[in-house]
């Protein structure tokens, strides 16, 4: 199994200042799958990955990476893993090609073996011909893609990516998604964290939603949606001028939402009505002047917001 985490607890600090950041987390990756870890800021995603790699010590729990016990044999296990860290850590003193060659050196891969693969690795990351470009001259998206290429120098069986597409434009995100799909098709196991629900829905065979160090939901995107939320959503917004009221969707929701939907959440000027059957609600809304509606199937973001709340983190 590429990664097996059981009962992981991670505390920072000691005594009264101690904070439990990961609180009993279990995770098992199947060979060849793409697994996404979703969670708000501070949920414990990066901490979990650091523990899995043996870079932070678990307070409690056991971890096996590529079949080897962590931290005891973390170093050996990392030889078979590729990592794209959350913050770029490319070597600013080297060119693109040198970054790959020097990084391969850390795996004991000699220069004569990696040099011929450099053009192929750069092409994979959409950086054809950038061999001699300096890191400072790369855009954020190019740096991210080079970091992906760097994570592949050792032909890893498991690729761990911490927010691989944060801060990237749609073109770069699509390129990374396409490459990650290609890697899973070739048999590489992928574990990634993300804040983008569409990213998880597109890429992940399975995902887990993490909050305050606990997994709140786990399964395939469809399973998670089916298990945790009503299938239909009607978003209601605009100025409601019916029933003598001159106010927003919230006022409408206060009077009618409970009777017409299973659950209704207000966020800003919009009411999100969750229901198994939207027909009666839509029929009612058709006669409410001023209100506008958007009817759609429930998605992962709805589950995420339901489970982790709508308040800001951090």
């Amino acid at each position, binding site marked *: 199994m590429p990664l097996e985490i059981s009962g992981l607890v991670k505390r*920072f600090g*000691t005594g009264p200042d101690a904070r439990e950041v990961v609180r009993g987390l279990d995770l098992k990756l199947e060979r060849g799958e793409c697994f996404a870890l979703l969670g708000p800021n501070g949920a414990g995603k990066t901490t979990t990955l650091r523990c899995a*790699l043996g*870079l*932070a*010590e678990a307070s409690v729990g056991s971890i096996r990476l590529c079949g080897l016990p962590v931290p005891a044999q973390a*170093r*050996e296990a*990392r*030889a078979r*893993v590729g*990592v794209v*860290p959350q*913050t770029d*850590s*490319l*070597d*600013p*003193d*080297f060119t693109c090609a*040198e970054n790959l060659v*020097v*990084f391969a*050196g*850390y*795996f*004991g891969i000699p220069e004569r073996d990696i040099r011929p693969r450099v053009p192929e690795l750069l092409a994979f990351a959409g950086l054809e011909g950038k061999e001699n470009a300096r890191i400072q001259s790369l855009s954020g998206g190019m740096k991210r893609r080079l970091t992906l290429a760097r*994570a592949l120098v*050792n032909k890893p069986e498991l690729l761990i990516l911490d927010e691989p597409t944060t801060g990237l434009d749609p073109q770069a995100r699509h390129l990374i998604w396409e490459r990650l799909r290609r890697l899973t098709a070739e048999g590489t196991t992928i574990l990634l964290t993300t804040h983008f629900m569409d990213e998880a829905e597109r890429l992940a065979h399975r995902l887990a939603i993490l909050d305050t160090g606990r997994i709140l939901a786990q399964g395939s995107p469809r399973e998670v949606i089916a298990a945790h939320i009503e299938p239909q959503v009607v978003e209601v917004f605009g100025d409601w001028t019916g029933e003598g009221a001159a106010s927003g969707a919230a006022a409408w929701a206060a009077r009618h939402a409970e009777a017409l939907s299973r659950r209704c959440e207000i966020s800003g000027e919009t009411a999100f009505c969750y229901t198994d059957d939207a027909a009666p609600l839509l029929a009612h809304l058709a006669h409410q002047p001023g209100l506008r509606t958007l009817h759609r199937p429930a998605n992962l973001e709805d589950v995420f917001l339901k489970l982790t709340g709508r308040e800001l983190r951090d």
Partner: protein
Amino acid sequence: MPHATALHFAPPRLSLRFLAVWRRNFLVWKKLALPSIVGNLADPVIYMLGLGYGLGLLVPEVEGVSYIAFLAGGTLAYSTMNAATFEALYSGFSRMHVQKTWEAIMNAPIALDDIVAAELVWAASKSCLAGVAILAVIAAFGFTASPLALAAIPVVFLTGLCFAALGLIMTALAPSYDFFMYYFTLFITPMTLLSGVFFPQGQLPDSVQLIASALPLSHAVSLIRPLLLGQVPAQIGLHLGVLALITVLAFWLALGLTRRRLLK
């Protein structure tokens, strides 16, 4: 948690994997080798020539040799100390904290112990490369003529290791670059003045002499100066032993502090 602290300060686990990290630093240095050497060379050589010829007019002889020949050995010793210290502090800190180079390397099958060991050996190597250049200048000016001067090169390397190890302690503790000013003002600069670089330690008051002779730079000077003057140093074993012991203990402490800082 006493458990975690004990783990952090467990003995270093060294392996040859440090070479890959050493090589990384060497490759960066190689790109700018000439300016780097000149940078490390210019300051000490200017001081040596300026003080040596200037003060040399007032002080015809020190311990039986011209003042500038006396100064040459001290210059090689303290410039080695400075080069190793700068590399371990400023360059080490930027690789550890600013550029996150160490973090990137730790994602590969390389342990933090190997990285810190590589920084130690690299800082010593760089100071040694600069030291050899200074030695060449000293020889070119004719301030040393003895083949024994070549034996100063391994001593320079050991001196580099010793001050790199001490510097890495500071790097492990530093919140920012500003912190290093204290280390220079409170430790490096006084030590330079007390270790017999510019004048014989015999000139110091007795009580100060006792402390001064225990300073690591004093041991380096006690070895390097006689070698440049063509003499076999007195108490070689003691001086080498002290430098080696400080290197080992300081490296151990630096590694423990670095593990505590980074492997949380």
